[in-house]
C-alpha cells in the first residue's frame, strides 16, 4: 500500500511538472519527430564520389545433380525443349563460378533513402521456365510479369511480409504489374500448374544488389563511400557476408566462394528445396 502511495505521489509530481511545463514541451518533441521523418524521407543525391563493389562467386567441389524436370503435365512446355531440362537450383558456369547468387548490401546504408527505379523489374515465362530465376528489385518498384508461352500460367509469390497474391495469366494476356511495398529477401514464386517453375524475388530497400550471371560476376555500383557489409545468398547453399570499404570514386573487389560440404549460415528465410514435388518417378 505504501508503495502505491509513493507511486501515486510520484505520478502527481510528474503531472504537476508536466502542467507547469505546459504544452510547449509536447509541441517541441513533435517538432523533433517531424524533422526526423523529414530527414529520413529525403532521397540521397549523388555527389559524384560514389564507388563500386565488384566480385565473383566461385564454386568448389562436385555440383549436386538433380533429376531432370518432367514436363509431361503440359504438352506445350515439353514441346519447347528438345533436351533434358534440369532445375535452376544449382547452376555452375563453365568458368567454375556459381550462377544465380544474389549479392546485396546488407548493412551500412542505415538512415539513407534512395530513389526507386521507375523502370519495372521484369519476370518472363519462357518455355515454362522463369527468366530470370533470381530477380532483385526495390520496394515500391513495379514488377512486370510477362508470358512468352502459349499455355496458361499462374504467378504465385509467397511472401512472409508483403501481401500474397496468385493470379492467372493465360496465353497472350496483358502483363501483370504489381509492386511489393516492403523490403523482403527471398520471396519464392511458383506456378501451381507447372510445379517445376520456381523463381526468387529479393525486394530491397535500396538499389545496391546484383545477381551473379553466366560469368559468376556481380557488380554493385553507385554506392556512397563508406563501410558496408555485403551478403551473398544462394538458395541451396545459404548466405555468407563480407565487410568492405568503398573509397570515394573508387572500386573494391570482394569475392565469394561456395564449397560443397561446407555449412553456410541459412539465409534469412527458408528457401525452396531443389527438388520439385512431382519431378521423379517413384523408385
Amino acid at each position, binding site marked *: 500500500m505504501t*508503495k*502505491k502511495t509513493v507511486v*501515486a505521489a510520484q505520478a502527481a509530481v510528474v*503531472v504537476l511538472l508536466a*502542467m507547469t511545463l505546459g*504544452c510547449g514541451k*509536447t*509541441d517541441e518533441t*513533435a517538432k523533433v519527430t517531424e524533422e526526423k521523418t523529414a530527414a529520413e524521407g529525403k532521397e540521397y543525391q549523388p555527389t559524384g564520389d560514389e564507388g563500386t563493389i565488384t566480385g565473383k562467386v566461385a564454386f568448389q567441389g562436385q555440383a*549436386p*545433380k*538433380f*533429376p*531432370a524436370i*518432367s*514436363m*509431361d*503435365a*503440359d*504438352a*506445350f*512446355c*515439353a*514441346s519447347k525443349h528438345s533436351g*533434358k531440362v534440369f532445375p535452376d*537450383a544449382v547452376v555452375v558456369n563453365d568458368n567454375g563460378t556459381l550462377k544465380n547468387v544474389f549479392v546485396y548490401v546488407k548493412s551500412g546504408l542505415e538512415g539513407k533513402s534512395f530513389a526507386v527505379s521507375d523502370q519495372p523489374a521484369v519476370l518472363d515465362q519462357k518455355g515454362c521456365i522463369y527468366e530470370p530465376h533470381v530477380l532483385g528489385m526495390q520496394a515500391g518498384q513495379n514488377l512486370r510479369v510477362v508470358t512468352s508461352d*502459349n*499455355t*496458361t500460367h*499462374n*504467378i*504465385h509469390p*509467397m511472401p512472409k511480409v508483403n501481401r*500474397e*497474391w*496468385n*493470379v*492467372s*495469366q*493465360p*496465353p*497472350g*494476356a496483358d502483363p501483370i504489374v504489381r509492386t511489393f511495398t516492403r523490403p523482403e529477401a527471398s520471396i*519464392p514464386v*511458383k506456378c*501451381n*500448374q507447372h*510445379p517445376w517453375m*520456381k523463381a526468387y524475388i529479393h525486394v530491397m530497400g535500396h538499389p545496391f544488389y546484383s545477381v551473379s550471371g553466366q560469368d559468376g560476376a556481380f557488380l554493385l555500383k553507385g554506392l556512397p563511400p563508406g563501410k558496408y557489409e555485403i551478403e551473398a545468398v544462394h538458395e*541451396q547453399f545459404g548466405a555468407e557476408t563480407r565487410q568492405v570499404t568503398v573509397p570515394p570514386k573508387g572500386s573494391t573487389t570482394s569475392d565469394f566462394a561456395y564449397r560443397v560440404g561446407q555449412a553456410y549460415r541459412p539465409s534469412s528465410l*527458408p528457401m*525452396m*528445396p*531443389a*527438388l*520439385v*514435388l*512431382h519431378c*521423379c*518417378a517413384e523408385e
Partner: protein
Amino acid sequence: MARDVNPGADRQSTGPDPIVDKSLSGPLLIAAFVMFLALGWALYAELYGGRPWKNHQRRFVSLYTSYLKKLRPRQLAAEKAAFASPELQKLEEQLTAAERSAGPRLSEIDRQLTSIRHRLAILKEPFQDARAKIAALTYELEHATSANGKRSIRHDIEEAKKGPFRVALPPEDGKALIVPASLTFGELERRFAECKSREAQLIAQQNEVTSESRELRRKRNDYLSERLVGLTQQQIDGLLRKMNEFRVEIKQIHIEEAGLVERCESCHLGIREPVTMTAADMGGNPLFVSHPVKDLMAIHDPNRFGCSPCHNGNGLAVSSVRKAHGNYEHWLWPLFAKENTEAGCLQCHFKDRVLEHAPVLTRGRDLYELKGCAGCHRYEGVDRDADGVADVRKEIQNLQTRQKESRLEMDREIKNGDQANSNEEAQKHFARAENLRVTVSNIDAMIGELEQKSKFLMQDLKKIGPNLKDVRLKLRRNWLPVWLRDPHAFRPGTKMPKFRLTDDEIRAISAFIWQSGLDGPLPVPQAKGDAAKGKELFETRGCLACHSIGEGDQRIGGEFAANLSRLGEKANYDYIVRWVHNPRERTRPYCPHEKRDLGPEDYSRHGLPFVADPDHSSCPNDGSELQIQNMTVMPSLRLSTEESRDIATYLMGLKHEYAAYPADVSYMEDASLAARGKQMVGRYGCASCHEIKTLEEAPRIGTELTREGSKPMEQLDFGLLEHKARKEGWYSHRGFVERKLNDPAVYDQGREKAPEDRLRMPNVQLTQADSRALTTFLLGSVDSPFRGEFRAIPAQFRYLPTDQQRDLQEGWWVIKKYNCMGCHTIQVGQKSVLSALPRYQDPDWKEQLPPSLLQEAARTNPGWLARFLSNPALSEEDVHRNGVRTYLAARMPTFNFSPNEVRILVRFFEAAAGQPNPYIALKLEPLDERERLMSRALFSSQAAPCLKCHLTGDERHDRYATAPNFLMAKERLKPSWTARWMLDPQAISPGTAMPSGLFHRDGDRWTFAGPTPNVFKGYNGDHVQLLLRYMFELTPEEQRRLTRAVPTAPTAATRQSETVSSGVRSR
C-alpha cells in the same frame, strides 16, 4: 437597573472580569487563522485533493485539443488529395452538369408547386370548415330518433352543401387576375382534390428530375468516405468545438433498469472519442486513451452497459484512483488487472466457449480442458458429455412417467366412451382416446431417440489421460515409478501434473496401478518396420498437429497431445503398433452396469465371439450399453499395418540412451502394497483423468470452480500467508489463484498438518502466460452477475446465445475437444499448428496443408459434409486415403464422431458461414448440346488450366494433381460458392494454389480471360455459369472423354528414366 449602575464595584470584589479585562485578540487571531486554514483546505480539496477529476478534465481538454489540432492538417491534406483525384473531379463535373441540365425544368416545377400550394392554402380553410360542419350534422342524423327530426337534419345537410362558399382563387398560371367564385360543397371538394393530386404529381416529377444528381451526389459521398481513413476535417472541427464548450463536471452514466450509476468517464474522458488515441498521443498519459477495442465498444454501448459490469471497480467513487478502482477492503469487486481484463467478458458470456475478442480468456478455457482441471474440479457446462448422459436419463424418466399417465388416461377415456349415455358423447371420449394413443406413440419415438442419443454420448465420453488398465500391456514396469516421481522431468510440458509423493507413496501407487492392470489379451506380436519411412510418415500424415517431437529448442509440433521424444524408453512395441493403427481399439469392453471389464469368457458363455464394436456394443450378460472404445480423443489416421509398424518403429527408436531406471521394482508385484496404493490413488484423484480398474466411478476430489471468482474472500484459505498477503497487497482473488496455480502447496507453508490433510493439488507447471490465462478464466467465473444490492446487474446483461449463435458455441466445444484447429483454419486470422511447422514453410509443402474451413458450409452441401465427417475416406473399402484430397500427405482422420457430434459440427459450419438450415439445392439449368461442346472444348484447351491441377481419376495424370476431382462437385459443392471460388479464390482462401483472374468482366457477364475455342463465337452467356453447370453435370464417361482430349507430352517413362540420384531430397 439600579444594580447595574455600578457593576464594576461588584466585580471588584470577585476579581477582574476576563471578558472585559482580558484581550481576546490572541484566541480570535488563532481562530481566524484556523478558519482561514480550513477555508484553504476546503478550497484545496475542492480544486485538487477531493476532486482529482477536475484537474484531469482540464488537462484532457488541453491535451485533446492540441492533439486534434495536430491531426487536422493531416486529415485536411488527405481530404484534399481525395478531392483532387480525377475520378472525383469527374463525378463533381457530372454532378454540376446534371444539376445544370435539370435546372430550368426544376425551377418551372418549383413555380407550379408554389402556385398550387397557394391555391391549396386558400381552399383548405373553407373546405375543412364545411366538411366538419357536414360531418357534425351527419352524426346528429345518425343519432336522431324521430323520423321528423331526421328529415329536418337531412334538409340542413343539403342546405349546408349548397353553400355558397366564396373563395378568391388565383388561376394556375398565376398571371391572370384573381376571380372570386362562389362554389357548392361538391365543387369545393373537387377543386381541393384536384389541387392535391396536382401537388403529388409535381413532387413525383421533381423527384424524377433530381434523381440523376441525387445518385451522383451519393456516389461522390461514397467515394470520399471509402478513401478517407479517419475523420474528416469537418468532424475534427466538431470535436474541437465540443472541447471549447467543455464543462468541468462529473460525467455520469445512469442506467435505470440496471440500477447502475457510473462516473468512470469523469476521469477516463477519451474512452469514447471517435479518434484513436494512445498514451503517447496524449502526452504519455494513459488515463486519456481511447478504448483500445473500438469494436467491443460498438457492441457494448456504455450508455446501455456502463463500465463496471465488464471491468469491475467502484463506478461511483471519484475521490481517488484507489477507491474508484475498488482496490480497498470494503469493495468486493476490484477492477480487473490489465492482464486479467477479459475475466470481465466471462461474467456475462459464461455460455460462450470461444470469444473472438477475448483470446486470453479463451486460452484459459482451453487450458482448463487441456490440462485436465475438469477431472478434479467440476465446472458447470464443461463436462458436456457426462452431464449430457445424466440429463438424457432424467429426460427419459420424465417421458416414461408422462407416457404412463397418458396410457391410464386413454384407458379411462375408452371406458367412459363405452359407458356413455349418447353416441355423441361416446365419440368425444373415443376421439380423445385416439389422440392419447398417438401421444403415447410419439413419446415412444422420443424415448427411442433419446436412448440413441445416450448411446452416442457414451461414445463421446473421453478421458484426459491414458487408460491405466492397459499398463501391463503397454508399459515397461520400471519406468512407472520414475514417471510418478516427476513427469515433467521425463517429459517437459506433459499434461500429467507433478504430485508431491513420498517414496513409500510412489511404491504403493506403482504397485496398485501395476497389479490392477489387465493381463490380456496381449496385443498381436508385430514385425519391425522401417524407421526412416516411419519418421517421414509421422511428420507428414498430420501427427504433429497434436503431438510434439524433439526436446528443448528442437521441439516442434502441437501441445494438444504428448511429446513423444522418449517413447522408446517406456513403451511396448506391439502395443504402440496397435495404438497407432487404431487408438480406439480397446483391450476389454467395460460394462458400466456390472462395473467390470468383460473378457472372452463372458462372450463364450453365451456362445458369442469376443467382438466389441459399434455393431456389437451391448453386454452379452445383461444387454446394457458397453464402453467399447478407448476413451481417447486420438483418431484413426486409417494407416495400413505397414505404416503403423513404420511409425511405431520410428517412435520406439526415440530415447535417451543414458537414461537409468531402477533395476529392482519387484515391489510392484507385492500384493500387500496394493491396498495402500489404492487408497493413495483415490486420495490423489488419479481416476479423474485415467481409467483405473475398480475406480471407474470414483468421485471428483476437488472443489467446484464454477463460481470461484465470486467466492467470499474469507472462504479462500491463505493459510498462514494471510498477513503477508495483506501486507504485500495480494490479498485478493487474483493473488490467491495465481499463487495457487504456480505452487499448489503454497498455502500449506509453515502449517503443521498430517500427511493426509495436506493440500493434494498437483503442480501443472504452467508458463506465466498460461497461468495468467487460467487466472483470468477463474476470476471471471462468478456467481450469476446478481451480486447483491451494490452490484445488481440485470439478467438481460447475461448473454444466452440462441439459434446460430448457440450452434456456433456448441460447435466450438467439439472443435476444441478434437483439436480441429491443429490442422485447419477455422477462425479468421487463426493459424493451424501444421502451418507453423518448418516443413510447411516450403512453397511446395504449403500446398500440402489441409484446407481452410473458413466458409466450409458455404462451400459444401451439409448432407455431404455429414457423410464426410463420419467417413473421411468416403469409401468403405478403399480406406487408406483421403476421400477428397487424395494428393495430400496429411490425412483427415476418422474421429469416430457420434451422430450427435456430426450434427453439432455441421450446424457449427452452417452457422459460421451464415447458411440457412435445412439446405435446399437450387436446380441448375441443364446444358444444351452446343454448351456441352463449348465447355468440353474449353476444359480441354491448352489455355484452360483446370485439368492441370484437378484430379481426374487417371492415375498418370493424378500424380501431378493438387486439387479435388470435378466429379465430386455435384454432390459436394454449393453452386453459388463454386462460382465465387472460380472468380476469386484468393478472397476465400488466401494463399490457395488456385489462381485468381481466370475470368474478365465483360458488360454484365464474366468471360474466360484466355483465348477461347472457336465454338464460343457468338455465345453471349456467362462463362463462369457455363463451366459451373458443366461441372455439376459431369459424369465419369464425360470426364474420360475430357482427359482423352487433353494434349499430352511424350510418356513419363522415357523422360524420367534418366533421373540422377540427388543430394537434397524433400520427399
